[in-house]
């Protein structure tokens, strides 16, 4: 069996400018932040980022990596709006394909199932269809007289044809993983991480801790191993790899550091200071700076 262990730097080394990259998690929850920080430090550019957006989107915009974002929202959860995202949008620095949360899910699902679109009512009547003029409707082929027509109101009904959101690469963060590439999410919600991986050509996990193949059952019920190895190409052990976003049960969101991140938007000096300590550093240095910061606050 192949050993899929890799490193964050090798994951980022596989990515190219202009790629479409899916980032798992939701808002400021279980984001693969170690990879996001590595992307920020890289010379990649013109990325299309596909995410239920949080500080991953804000940081990548603030460091000029992003051409376009595909998302239903960008939020820091405990802070409603990510001011870095807000600034990028209001200054016209990024394009956006803004869609309904459910449309987004169906876009990933369609890509994972290798169909060009999935139909949904979500989006009908809304400006999602006017701000994304390439989106199309599809008419139900089951009209009056069809044995498959259950609800007469659905005869020839027009629905949104949510296109597959195909990803060149996807990265998600898990609580545990094994050397073969199975991933375990001990937090109560796996969000849409299996679909991000299913929608992508190259699929990567980062994880708090890697165990031997077959040992994930020791870490929690097998039902929490929701990412099986058919969905993954590489696993990088990165303790604290989702920090400062929430990654229960390993750690909660670092609200204090998130506040500092948010406050650094719109103040070039504050942003430079934040980026110097928490972005343009290795993961070891990042962890050291976070520890130092926490100890300083405790004194």
């Amino acid at each position, binding site marked *: 069996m192949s050993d899929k262990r890799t490193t964050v730097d090798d994951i980022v080394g596989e990515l190219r400018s202009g790629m479409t990259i899916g980032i798992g998690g*939701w808002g400021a929850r279980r984001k693969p932040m170690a990879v996001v920080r590595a992307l920020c430090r890289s010379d990649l550019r013109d990325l299309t980022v596909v995410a239920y*957006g949080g500080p991953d989107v804000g940081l990548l915009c603030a460091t000029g990596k992003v051409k376009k974002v595909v*998302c*239903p*929202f*960008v*939020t820091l959860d405990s802070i*409603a*709006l990510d001011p870095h*995202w*807000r600034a990028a*949008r*209001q*200054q*016209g620095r990024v394009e956006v394909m*803004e*869609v*309904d*949360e*459910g*449309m987004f*899910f169906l876009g990933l699902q369609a890509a994972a199932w290798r169909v060009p679109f999935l139909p*949904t*009512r*979500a*989006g*009908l*009547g*809304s*400006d*999602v269809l006017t*701000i994304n003029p390439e989106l199309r409707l599809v008419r139900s082929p089951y009209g009056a007289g069809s044995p498959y027509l259950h*609800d007469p*109101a*659905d005869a020839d*009904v*027009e*629905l949104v044809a949510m296109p597959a959101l195909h990803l060149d690469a996807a990265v998600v963060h898990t609580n545990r993983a094994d050397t073969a590439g199975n991933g375990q999410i001990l937090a*109560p*919600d*796996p*969000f*849409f991480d299996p679909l991000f991986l299913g929608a992508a050509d190259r699929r990567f996990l980062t994880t708090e801790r890697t165990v031997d193949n077959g040992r994930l059952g020791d870490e929690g019920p097998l039902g929490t191993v929701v990412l099986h190895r058919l969905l993954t190409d590489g696993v990088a052990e990165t303790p604290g790899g989702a920090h400062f976003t929430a990654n229960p049960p390993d750690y909660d969101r670092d609200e204090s550091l998130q506040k500092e991140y948010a406050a650094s938007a719109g103040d070039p000096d504050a942003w430079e200071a934040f980026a110097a300590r928490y972005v343009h550093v290795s993961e070891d240095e990042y962890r050291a700076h976070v520890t130092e910061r926490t100890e300083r606050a405790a004194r």
Partner: protein
Amino acid sequence: MTATRPDRPDLPCTRAESCVVACAEAWRGAGEVMASPFGTIPSLGARLAKLTFAPDLVLTDGEAALMVGALPIESRAADLVREAAMPYRTVFDVVWSGRRHIMMMASQIDRTGNQNLSAIGPHHQPKVQLIGVRGAPGNSVNHPTSYWVPDHSVRTFVEHVDVVSGVGYGRALAAGSGATRFHDVRRVVSNLGVFDFETPEHIMRLRSYHPGVAVGDIVAATSFSLVIPDDVAETRLPTPEELDLLRTVLDPGARRDRDIRS
């Protein structure tokens, strides 16, 4: 805690408490559906409804589970009793089955119930970027949807919203049967009154004004012309039981008064 209003010493409740009761009323008769309230006042409203006249409501813990009962708004996670898992992927099964009544916030709302959560100004480069359309497009065409607007003004109650996120009646009609089949924008509750769309053209109607609010105040704070019935009534007062539940059980820390002052 302010138990009475300085401007209306005859009233037994604060404005925030009127708003909670008005939100709770949105779920009257809802039966066994998921109530998804956004914001402190709607959250208190859903819990109050569940503890009184809508006991079958299904509430989530705000994360990935359904919770038993209706606990105080400031409960710790450890105090929650969970009855079932409800990860976000599963929430869409509920949304698209129609067994849900959400109360979302609205940065802007217009006279046929279009709501905006996305951006103020042109979408390609907004004057003010908001949170994003979130689930509003899909919610509004799949199950009953209500809105909570804590700051009723001509900037929030507008003639036309800048980015239609939640779909109103006119837009649903124009989009065809796929949009109208399950479309049901029920109520709008603001800090000034309660509104619905139970008019021939589905134009927003003043359903009730909160105690202490004049109809003229509402008209002056609304950019479009509302339908105002001759016999429009005051929002009902909380019952003594409701006030007691709210003040001693659900919100002893009076978080409701931080959202709405009176």
